[in-house]
């Protein structure tokens, strides 16, 4: 029973590993690697949360064919990506080019991290200062007196 359950679980898990399958013949391993790299870097225009390597939609199929064709023509990766961007817009890049418009996407995470670090350092420093200076020094003479008597009372109770 347990084994059956395990088999079922594994089968369900393997669904996620499915990808579109084409039968392309490559001249070299390097070309094959570039094909997989490019098709995983480009977004499918129809099914927007998939890259064109994973999508089975007709348009993704066409775009894979185009990538293959251009690889056969010995075009560079940049040329192929530019070809797609010219037609389908910036949107097809999963890694947007660095422009004034996309700068926030590229730098915001680092900026947030830095802001967080600054805030942390600032707060730790302040806390340390309070600790070092000794909180008691900020008390007026009457308050000092009261603190002392409270502490003595506590000692007596112990």
């Amino acid at each position, binding site marked *: 029973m347990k084994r059956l359950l395990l088999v079922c679980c594994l089968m369900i898990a393997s669904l996620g590993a499915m990808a579109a399958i084409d039968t392309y013949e490559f001249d070299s391993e390097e070309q094959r690697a570039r094909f997989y790299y490019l098709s995983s870097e480009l977004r499918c225009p129809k099914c927007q949360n998939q890259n064109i390597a994973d999508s089975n939609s007709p348009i993704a199929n066409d*775009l894979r064919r185009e990538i293959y064709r251009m690889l056969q023509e010995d075009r560079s990766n940049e040329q192929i990506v530019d070809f797609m961007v010219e037609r389908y*817009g910036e949107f097809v890049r999963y890694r947007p080019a660095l422009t004034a418009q996309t700068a926030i996407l590229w730098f915001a995470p680092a900026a947030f991290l830095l802001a967080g670090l600054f805030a942390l350092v600032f707060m730790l420093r302040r806390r340390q200062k309070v600790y070092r200076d000794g909180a008691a020094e900020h008390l007026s003479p009457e308050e000092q007196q009261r603190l002392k008597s409270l502490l003595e009372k506590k000692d007596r109770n112990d």
Partner: protein
Amino acid sequence: MKRALLMLPLALFLLMLVFLFRGLYLDNEDLPSALVGKRFPAFTLPSVEAGQPPVTEQDLLGQPSLVNVWATWCVACWVEHPVLNKLAAEGVVIHGVNYKDDTEAARKWLRDLHDPYDLNISDPEGLLGLDLGVYGAPETFFVDANGVIRYKFIGVIDERTWENDLAARYQALVDEAQP
């Protein structure tokens, strides 16, 4: 000062909420076309009709037009077709790109449902579609008299969108072409 600083995380959180809430209602089907402002891509393709000479981008010049990408397998195109017929009858110049389709089926469609198109471009391999950045059908390009793409509409043109938005865009191109 200290109070204000304490409120900062809350303010940031609220700001983020505003953005996320807006994101819920964004229409992500509506992509800006990379081709708006560029020339209609060069092509030489056969006509859907038998015995007609091939069509090229030169044939689009001289008057503003709508270039409608359609196919018989596209259900939405079937919905759109009567509207195109009506617009064509009103004098709007519409060219058709029969996209990744069977030519026989396309001819039958045009015979049975009436042919609103001025030029009938046949693109069985989707080559022109690729150059146009088409990723579905129907898509309609607004091309001015100089052959520059000025606007792209994705989806079904119905009478309401035509009246509210698209008619004015087409009219602007027509007015522009008047000497």
